């Protein structure tokens, strides 16, 4: 080491050379994740949404054991309005509507969660691969994503559903095939911006592998998007399943909200004024959708300030305009130099 050091500097050095000790505040136990969850718990929208969703999940899980009648059996006269015997009335063939609604929750929510999981996993795989690998891999996957996005969803759904044997898993397959692209696109662009961050470069320089960088360095930083995408996909699946079944493209012997509506329509519920056969399933679909949307709004609210600051960091890191660099100088210095 050259020891010829400016004395002024040396003096300055002895003044301030003591390393600044870490602030001696107690270590905060709360991790980041629980911080976000904590904020969510305080959020009104999240509370309302979670209440609705949890209620319906409980209905789906426990309900079938508690219902008064077998939803597939004829247990009364046709189209009887709500009464003490049949709280939600009976449908056009004399089946109990309450039992149908409760049991239908299971099929609808199961479809939602299964499709949501598949779509999320596929979205992460394809979106992150495209965003991280870039180049030709990205060109190929992006084209694929765009094609799926551009093809009008409902017609494709109908065509696919019409060709496959009617059934629970066919619908899940159809909804997964048509539903993964949107999440992929969002995750792709998020991955692209996160991979430019110095912490990714830093992981590369210490020798982390690609897969590990994607899953352990990048993915945890977009969990809010992943979770929001999951709920969105669940919503989409429940709605689309109901839509397909309503059009008669499901398996009509399966008890689900969509099929309940299909049968109500088939039995001319509107014409005979049997509104009670339409409202319970229709309202359930709407309420569940509302609940998931509320949760997503809340996630957005809670995480957005953070996203905003991430975006700022990203733009600084893009290392372009000189004016961003200005911020490097402490204001005190700028004033001191009188410029």
């Amino acid at each position: 080491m050259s020891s010829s050091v400016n004395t002024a500097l040396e003096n300055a050095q002895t003044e301030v050379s003591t390393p600044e000790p870490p602030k001696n505040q107690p270590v905060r136990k709360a991790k980041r994740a629980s911080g976000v969850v904590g904020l969510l718990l305080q959020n009104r929208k999240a509370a309302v949404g979670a209440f609705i969703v949890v209620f319906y999940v409980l209905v789906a899980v426990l309900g079938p054991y508690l219902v008064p009648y077998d939803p597939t059996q004829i247990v009364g006269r046709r189209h009887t309005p709500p009464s003490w015997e049949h709280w939600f009335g009976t449908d056009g063939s004399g089946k109990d509507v309450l039992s149908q609604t409760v049991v239908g929750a299971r099929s609808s929510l199961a479809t939602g969660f299964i499709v949501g999981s598949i779509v999320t996993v596929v979205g992460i795989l394809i979106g992150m691969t495209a965003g991280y690998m870039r180049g030709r891999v990205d060109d190929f996957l992006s084209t694929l994503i765009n094609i799926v996005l551009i093809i009008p969803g409902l017609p494709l759904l109908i065509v696919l559903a019409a060709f496959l044997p009617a059934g629970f898993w066919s619908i899940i397959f159809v909804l997964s095939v048509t539903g993964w692209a949107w999440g992929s696109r969002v995750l792709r662009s998020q991955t692209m911006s996160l991979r430019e961050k110095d912490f990714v470069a830093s992981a590369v320089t210490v020798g982390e592998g690609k897969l590990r960088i994607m899953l352990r360095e990048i993915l945890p930083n977009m969990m809010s998007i992943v979770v929001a995408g999951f709920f969105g996909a669940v919503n989409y699946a429940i709605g689309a399943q109901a839509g397909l079944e309503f059009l008669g493209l499901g398996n009509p012997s399966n008890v689900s909200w969509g099929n309940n509506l299909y049968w109500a329509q088939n039995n001319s519920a509107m014409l005979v004024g049997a509104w009670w056969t339409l409202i319970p399933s229709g309202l359930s679909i709407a309420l569940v959708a509302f609940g998931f949307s509320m949760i997503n709004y809340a996630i957005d609210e809670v995480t957005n300030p953070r996203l905003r600051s991430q975006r700022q960091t990203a733009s600084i890191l893009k290392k372009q305009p000189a004016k961003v660099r200005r911020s490097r100088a402490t204001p005190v210095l700028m004033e001191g130099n009188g410029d």
Partner: protein
Amino acid sequence: MSEQRDLVLDIKNLTKHFPMGGMRDTRKVHAVEDVTFALPRTEIVTLVGESGSGKSTTARLISRLIEPTSGEVIYNGKDVLKTQPGGASLEYRGDIQMVFQDPFGSLNPAHTIGYHIERPLLIHKKVSGRKALKDRVHELLDTVGLGPADETAAKFPYELSGGQRQRVGFARALSVEPKVILADEPVSMLDVSIRVGVLNLMKRLAEDSGLSFLYITHDIASARYISDHTNVMYAGRMVEGAPSDTLVHEPAHPYTRLLLSAVPNPHAGLRTQETQARGEIPSLIDPPPGCPFAARCPHVMDVCRQIMPGAVTIAPHHWVRCHLYGDGGESPLPNAANSVG
């Protein structure tokens, strides 16, 4: 000159052109152009230059985060670009470490400080067993002045100040027992009051652990404080290289003189100069021939706008690329005079 010296890194004619991005846009950003310098073992060599002069890009090229357009990166006598064409080997990753410019971007917000330091230890199999791992993490945190270590290890990056994060960056770099650390403006984003602390940490590490440092900065005063040899970069090119003291006392290149003319005191660094210089940095997009400094140079001559000056050695270990020196004609081969430590 360079023959007798033990060079850990020898960078030759390193060049990086970034495509402009547009599909039909064939123009290139000449971020790093024909950069040649050497890093002798256990020394600190500085790369000084203003914003956008290509310093970070040079460091990223050496650490092989990006691949150069052309040039050689000779590590321990071997051109790693040729011996490891598919990307850096794990061994090279372990030997060459980098400390990043922005302490707020270089730590992953999702992981604890402990995780950041454990990972390299595990990847490079530096320790075995949980206990040893934990001890080593704590030892490293203590080394960089981040005690009490067990508290720090449990924290998340957002709980630390910029200076503390930069120390974590050093601890992480040190964890793999590297031979070279590329420190990319490690103090530029820190408050003036804590800069010297981090610089002293670097100095101590170079002296104690036999490490070699490439110190990147835009502050020529800190370059002189910390390093043996300083290279000046301008618009992607090396314009002058000399022992740090010589550079400060006998600057040869007009740009170096400009940098030095406005150093009011060590702490304020180059602020005044930097603000004056802003907006005048020449475009790096397909630059015209000739000296890149011509637009701002008080001594500019006709030849400057046409021919790129070659490197001329004007004193031992002191070379400059400027038509004011030498015969002012076509340049001698840059390598010949350039590869001074």
